[in-house]
């Protein structure tokens, strides 16, 4: 197991980062710090996914042969948008000569980032409201107030 940990040290680091984020969520009592922990935890999971999709010696999954974004690559390769109509379907195999990284994890993580920020926004809005009604954003204080309320049945 230990030799494997060193061979795949990318994954090892990513796991340590995930653990750290998760620890911040669980251990801190401050509502904002918890959300920071959650954010770190989620970002580390993104790192895991992107690491899965990395291909050694690969390139970003933007097909360079097909179309030149800046004009530098406009070599013998056909300009896809212009030449597409003439090239019969199935005739063009651009991927065989260039190695690309796996695009699927990238897509998944783009979605996950958005989900993460959505959760964060709701969490922070809740925090602000909690601060207004409880006067604190420390979990201990909030639990104490609620506990007293449950015991006495009245506020204050």
């Amino acid at each position, binding site marked *: 197991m230990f030799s494997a940990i060193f061979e795949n040290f990318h994954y090892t680091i990513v796991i340590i980062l995930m653990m750290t984020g*998760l620890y911040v969520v669980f251990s801190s009592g401050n509502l904002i710090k918890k959300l920071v922990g959650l954010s770190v935890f989620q970002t580390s999971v993104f790192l895991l996914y992107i690491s899965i999709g990395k291909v050694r010696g690969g390139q970003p999954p933007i097909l360079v042969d097909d179309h030149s974004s800046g004009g530098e690559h406009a070599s013998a390769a056909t300009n896809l948008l212009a030449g597409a109509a003439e090239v019969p379907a199935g005739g063009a195999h651009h991927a065989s000569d260039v190695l690309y990284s796996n695009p699927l994890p990238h897509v998944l993580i783009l979605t996950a980032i958005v989900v993460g920020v959505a*959760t964060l926004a709701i969490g922070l809005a809740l925090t602000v409201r909690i601060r207004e009604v409880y006067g604190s954003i420390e979990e201990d204080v909030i639990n104490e107030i609620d506990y007293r309320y449950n015991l006495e049945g009245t506020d204050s």
Partner: protein
Amino acid sequence: MGMLEFFPEWLQYHGAALAVVLPLLMGAICAILPSERLAWITTLIVVSICTVTAFGLLLVTFGGESVIYKMGGWDPPKGISYVIDGLNTPVIFLISAMALLTTLYGLPSVVAEVEPKKRAPFYGAFLIGVAGLLGMVVTGDAFNVFVFLEVSSISTYVLVAMGASRDRRALAAAYRYLILGSIGATFFVIGLGFLYMETGTLNMADIGRKLQELEGGSRVAMVAFGFITVGLGLKLAMFPLHMWLPGAYAHAPSFVTVFLASTATKAALYLMLRFSFTVFDVSFDYVLTVVTYLFTGLGCAAMVLGSLQAIFQTDARRTLAYSSVAQVGYMLLGVGMATSLGLTAGYVHLLNHAVIKGALFFALGAFWYRYGITRTEDFAGLGKMMPWTMGAFTLGGLSLIGVPLTAGFISKLQLAEAALQRGWGWAVFVIMATSILAIIYIGRLILTAYFQAPPEIDGEVVKRNEAPLMMLIPMWILVALSITIGVNSDFVVQAGQMAAEVLGGIS
């Protein structure tokens, strides 16, 4: 199935997508509607269409068929697909039908509990929540599950927090739910990442095939299963992971509590079944171990400890919330048997419990609506003050206990039969014992309501003030359904068997 003729051909294929996309789009529109009444009518129409569609899909799968809908026209492993089969159509129908009943109930209830200007966006958030739940049940793509899990979760957090205009604890409960829910979802995503590492695909059927080829796969798949189990366990309030549930149920607006209690955990349990039995398979040693020991063990622990905690609550909503934790235990016990009978029993209880808890929370919401009552001691005299609502509560409570001629009895009978067939006599004992605990916590509420006099205010006995008709109708529909199932359980049991057939399980 002669009724299928009335269900258009187009909907048999496109219905699955329609049931999710329509509430999503209309939810977005609802959010900007100027009038709350208009928003309510829109919501009602949308969930009605969903219910009809879901019923049609249910009939299609009762005919033994399954439908694969290709989103964007791309073939499954490449694109996202929706899968309709015997396992998910009952849950889809349950979610949309419960959404319909809660919407009816919402007309008076939301007016009392939500700020006037916010009612239209509130209905928008509700529709998006419904669509999220439907989406995660109907999809055949593992990552799409996560996306729709979050769609439903995010709107649910907000809906729960809306209870703050009644009780500030709703905010703290929503926050706790958000943190635990997000951790659950992230665990699910981690599990999915490991699964993707092992199989290279995200389509659930495809993952299942790959794992069969690998005969369960390596430790990577094992860890993936662990993380997916914990992630979904958080969502379905599996015993030690249920901390978010009592607060969320107790302090959310009544409208939201009913819908949550009868659908959210059920959808998560469905996913647990889908992943444990069809994506992974009980023929893999590690899955069988987790299902047999973990699910059964935690299920029994939930039944006993959840019921015990329910007894010691001072708030009736919390009592029922802890009871929900216990009821999830019953379902897990059935699933843990992993036999055809056990799975049928677990699935039947999933459906029955939604009906029963829906009725009970409907009644609790009505008590608050008229008298602001949530605490147990305030139940005194409710039998006289709100006879019809209390009647529904009583019948629902009896069903929860498992008295013969109610849906709860059918569940427990099925579970006991399955346990005996599996050779688990002790499980029958646990079921009996927790039923007695249920008698205590439900009985206490019912006795207080009927055998104590109504309170006096300014020397005057509080008068009878029955809940409005729009609250009573959905409540009594569920009560009637619970008794109908108790008298003739064929329809539900058939659904359970259909699901068990898809799941397989050990023979």
